[in-house]
Every structure is written in structure tokens, then in C-alpha cells.
């Protein structure tokens, strides 16, 4: 139970984890062995090793490429987490033939926002009318990507709360469209997770992962004061690797995830 630290340094470590939004169960799981095995040397060092090990267990942080073009990447997540911006940043990093699918047909100016990024990156954006069926956009964009022999298709989806069953079903349908074209199964379904997300984050990711295979996390807004502890619980409990971190609002503000840097910030 939190707050039961016998040693002041262990109590300080527990506070560091809690104040960084690490899930309560993960905190207990990490702090317990420190309290019982206090002869194991510096608890801070031991904890650091445990945390880095959790990230290494989750697998590679590299992005997969399909052996048949186009490689399809889905960008999913709750409202306002940074999906559209992250997608643009990743395209900027790739410098390949990329097509954007504007599959957020719901939110005001979502299509315009993506088109602006497409212009800045000089990449084509496939879009329909606002209010249209997002699955149709995905289908269309896939056809276009195949026809134009693009290397990648990036799919921008609408933000949605994991508690909206209808929207989660819609997302599953969009995913299956691309799976249906056998060789174009999404190679990555990247869930964009706001680093300042609290204890609800694990449930969020868990629910998304039930609807489509989430292959990686983009931990956004890590340039804020948040340490993104939510990611540690997600990796530990669901085994989904954090692949990228968002560090700002411009195209250059995307970096590969580093467990060491993350851990330093977490334990302050």
C-alpha cells in the first residue's frame, strides 16, 4: 500500500513514481521488493534497473516496414493526444513517398489541419467530405497508395474516448479494411498517448488494444513538466513498446524512445 515506506529513500522513490503518474499497481509492484530486500544495495539503482528491464522486455522500438508496399501506419488515440501532429512529424522524419489519409471526418477542420501539414511536407492527402464514412477514406487512400506506388500510407483517425463503444467499433472496422487487403495489413498501429495522462491511461490503452493490435506507443508532450509515468504501466502490463516521444509542436519534435532518459526524468 502506498505510504508504507520504512526507509526515507524508498519513500522518496515511491513519491517520485506516484507524482509521475505511474499506475498504482505498478508502483506497488516496484516498491515492494525494495522494502523487503533492503540489503540489496542502493534502492534507487535497483529500481532503475527494474524499470529499464521492463522497457527492454517489451521489444524493439524500431518501426516495422512491410515487405510489400505501401506500409500502412495507423494513428489512434483519445481526443487531443497529438495524433495528427505526430503523424506529420513522423512523415517529416521518413523522407519517403508517403500518402496521408484524412480519416477524421468528424471534427471541425480536422481535414484542413491535415491538409496544411500535407502542404508543408509536400505530401498528398486523400480526403472525402466532412461527415463522410472514415472507412471509405481509408479504402480510397489505400487504392491511391497502391496505384501511385507509395512507400507508406499514414492514416490519421479521429480522437475517441475508449468508453465510446460505437467509435471503438468504427476504428476496428477501419483497421479491418486494410487487413482485408492481405498484403496491406497495418504494419504499425501507433497509439498516441499524452504524457500527462493520469491513472486512466492504462485502461485507455487496454481498451484500444482489444480493438486492434496496438504495436507501439507515441508518448506525446514530453516537453511539458509531465514525466509520462503512464507509459511505464502500459509497457509493464500490456507489453506494448514505447517507440517514439513527442517533444514539441514542430516537425522536428519527435525522437526515438530512450528508456535511460525516461528513467532519469522519472526518478529525478
Amino acid at each position, binding site marked *: *500500500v*502506498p*505510504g508504507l515506506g520504512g526507509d526515507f529513500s524508498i519513500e522518496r522513490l515511491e*513519491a517520485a513514481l*506516484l*507524482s*509521475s*503518474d505511474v499506475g*498504482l499497481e505498478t508502483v506497488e509492484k516496484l516498491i515492494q521488493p525494495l522494502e523487503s530486500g533492503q540489503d540489496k544495495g542502493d534502492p534507487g539503482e535497483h529500481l532503475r534497473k527494474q524499470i529499464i528491464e521492463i522497457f527492454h522486455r517489451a521489444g524493439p522500438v524500431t518501426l516495422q516496414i512491410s515487405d510489400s508496399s505501401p506500409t500502412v501506419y495507423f494513428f489512434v488515440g*483519445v*481526443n*487531443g*493526444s*497529438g495524433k495528427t501532429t505526430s503523424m506529420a512529424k513522423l512523415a517529416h522524419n521518413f523522407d519517403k513517398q508517403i500518402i496521408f489519409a484524412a480519416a477524421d471526418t*468528424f*471534427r*471541425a*477542420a480536422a481535414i*484542413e*489541419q491535415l*491538409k*496544411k*501539414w500535407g502542404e508543408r511536407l509536400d505530401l498528398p492527402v486523400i480526403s472525402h467530405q466532412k461527415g463522410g464514412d472514415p472507412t471509405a477514406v481509408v479504402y480510397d487512400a489505400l487504392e491511391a497508395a497502391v496505384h501511385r506506388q507509395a512507400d507508406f500510407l499514414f492514416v490519421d483517425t479521429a480522437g475517441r*474516448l*475508449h*468508453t465510446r463503444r460505437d467509435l471503438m467499433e468504427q476504428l476496428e472496422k477501419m483497421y479491418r479494411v486494410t487487413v482485408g487487403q492481405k498484403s496491406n495489413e497495418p504494419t504499425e498501429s501507433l497509439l498516441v498517448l*499524452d504524457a*500527462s*495522462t*493520469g*491513472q*486512466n*491511461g492504462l*485502461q*485507455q490503452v487496454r481498451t484500444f488494444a482489444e480493438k486492434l493490435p496496438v504495436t507501439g506507443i507515441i508518448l506525446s*508532450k514530453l*516537453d*511539458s*513538466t*509531465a514525466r509520462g*509515468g*503512464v507509459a511505464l504501466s502500459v509497457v509493464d502490463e500490456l507489453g506494448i513498446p514505447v517507440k517514439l516521444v513527442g517533444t514539441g*509542436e514542430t516537425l522536428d519534435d519527435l525522437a526515438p524512445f530512450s528508456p535511460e532518459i525516461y528513467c532519469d526524468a522519472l526518478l529525478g
Partner: protein
Amino acid sequence: RLTEKLNSAFKKLRGRGKLSEEQVKDGLKEIRRILLAADVHYSVVKKFVKRVENKAIGEEVLKSLTPGEQIIKIVREELQELLGGQREELGLHQHGPTPIILVGLQGTGKTTTAGKLALHYREQKKTPILYSADYRRPAAREQLRQLAEENQLEFYPEQYEDPRDDLPELVEYAENKSLNPVIIDTAGRLNIDQPMLEEIGDFQRLLPESRVLLVIDGMMGQEALQVAEDFAGVVQLDGLILTKMEGDARGGAAISAREVTGVPVLYIGTGEKAADFQPFHPERMASRILG
């Protein structure tokens, strides 16, 4: 469920009379966990639990309640008290337009909330006008313009590059057309971005009669405390709005933000449509926090 957990912690200590120190300490361990799980800030939980402890020890157990229920009752009352006890309203100026400025971190729902707030005031027979001071985010102004259009709300298009040049003319326009309130959407900004914080300070200095509302994401965690404190440090905040509350995040960020700023939560966003907007009720929030 909460009552069951507390009662099972208490079942060996069941009895009437006063709550013993041991009964209270056991119950508070569980309360502490519940509040942390609800995203209430670590330091706020510590202070809160201490307050409840002092109130609870030696308190007479009401005949109709078990010790567990008694403690919950005290916690619920203290939470409501912390949240201001009762509902508050954002008053508009009687003479002249009231500028209402929405501020907050990136992606919290400011632009969407601007539309909701305008619709809310129109339903109260007021005549709001919307303006976007967000010159940074791609298609931000277009987003607000579309929201205004689809809800048939007045929209003031920017005339200058710098919103500081627009603001006085915007208010003058509203005055001439008897429009009230003037709802101003701003760009998302970090609480550690000094120049951007200065900008909203400038907005308020330009419009001293303005109200400033901090828009907070309902699923925000521990950082809500620092964020609210930092924004309150550069502008006088008049209210908080908690968004995305139709989800299953408990919204403890509201407790932290309220505690550190003393500013009331006025509204909650409960969806993506303009009508998904409700006044904030402290007692409902207290129940939600306690799960």
C-alpha cells in the same frame, strides 16, 4: 466498491460509540489509495487525509451508519467543501461586453469549449461572439469558424497578425453591436513556456474587464497541480473547466487545481458536440472521485 472495502476493513472493529483512532487510520489508508487512483495530487491527498483524520477521530458514529460509512460520509462532505460546497456561476457584466478568455495546455479542448460556452450563453438569451487568438496551430481559426457556423454563432475574423491588435477592436465591435460575452479562444501553451504565458498576461492587461478560464483535460494526472498554479501565476483566473468528463477518468485533476488556485470549477465538457456542456456540481464530483 468503496463502502464494501471500508466495511471489510472495519468488520472486526464493528461497534457503536466513537470512531477509534485505529478505525480511522485503517479507513484512511483505503481513502488515500482511492484519491490517488482518482488522480488527486499526492500532496493534496496528504493534506486532505490529515483533515479527515482530525475530523473523524472521536466523532460519534451515527446510529444508522457503520464506522466505514461514517468515514465515507466525512470524506464526501470534506471533498464537497474542498470543491466549493455549491455550484457557482460566471457572472457577465451588465454594461458592456464581457470578454471570456480560454487558456490551457495543448489539446485540452479549448476551441471546442469556446463553441460550447457560446451556445450555452445563447441558450440563456445572451448574444455571444467568438474570436480565435490562435495564430499558431494549423487550421485553428478555421476550426472555430466552422464551429461558429454549424451552431449559428457570431464569429469575428482576425484583422491583424497579432491578436493584441485585434482585441481592442473586437471589444469595440461587440459594444457597438451589443454582443455579450466575447469568447476568446487562445493557442494551447505549456505552463513552462514563459513568453507564451506572458502573452495571456498581455491579453488580460489589454482587457482588464475580462474573465479567464483554465481548461483542463479530465484525464490529466498529477501535473494538474503545477499547471494550474503556473497559469494562476500569470493571470487572474476566474474559473476552471474540466473536459472529456463523459469518459471514465475520475477527474481528480479538478481537486488539485481547485485546491492550489482557490478558483471554482464552473463547467464540465461531456462530449464532442456543442451541446455536451454542463454546469459543475460539487456533490456529483465528490461521488465520482470516490468511485
